[in-house]
């Protein structure tokens, strides 16, 4: 399935692997913070109205 990367296989896969991990990391962190902030604000607003 993997294309033949020749003698630089390690470099190319490492570059893709690490970059994807970094990008996935920032997406995951942003998403988590987003849902936490949203939930907390909802709770506080509910408290205020109730």
């Amino acid at each position, binding site marked *: 399935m993997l*294309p*033949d*990367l*020749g*003698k*630089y*296989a390690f*470099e*190319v896969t*490492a*570059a*893709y692997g*690490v*970059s994807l991990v*970094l*990008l996935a*990391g*920032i*997406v995951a*962190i*942003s*998403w988590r*913070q*987003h849902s936490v*902030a*949203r939930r*907390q*604000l909802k709770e*506080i*607003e509910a*408290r*205020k109205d109730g």
Partner: protein
Amino acid sequence: MSIWEYANPLKFLNWTTKVLPWVAGCAAVCVSVGLIWGFFFTPDDYRQGSTVKIIYLHVPAALMAINAWLMMLVASLIWLVRRHHVSALAAKAAAPVGVVFTLVALFTGAIWGKPMWGAYWAWDPRLTSFLILFLFYLGYMALWSAIEDADTAADLTSVLCMVGSVFALLSRYAVNFWNQGLHQGTSVPVATGERTVADVFFVPLLISMVGFGLMFLALVLLRTQTEIRKRRAAALIARETT
């Protein structure tokens, strides 16, 4: 109704919630198509072998690393001039994303350097400039997290962003002067219209660049929403306790 209406925090939350899924979806599609195309379906370069595939990560990440800083600069200026809170928060939200892009650009650049230059790290001007840009990002984020009062933090980081931009630019030229580089010339010269990259490489690269741009946009919108909600929650809590 002016364009600034969209900068009202609540309005901002509303319209971004509507567009965010679309932007994020397009970003995901473009990034996946660009990278998968680049990784699986492009030929090797006759000189660089398969390492040419790193370009689909390296160039878009580097491009967005700089654009992220520029966006922060513009947002800082808007904050200083028009005092739109969303603008300051957007600058704050963009910084960590910019850092990640800078890291990706640095990492892929270093790993590309190993087969091409024979060493993981060469003090090549462009690579060095990115390292310096990385340091500026770190300082900017450190200053945000060090100051408690939100408006003061926004003011100070905005001024830092402006002064930092000047010094980052200055460093770029200083570094150029200091060590003439090994780096190849720009791969996508927009101004001259002349391309050094063949079409087989260029199309997936372009898709990947668009994808990274959209991804940046989506992340900044998402993170700005987070910041707005955090601010609002903090304000409500402050009101409760008094």
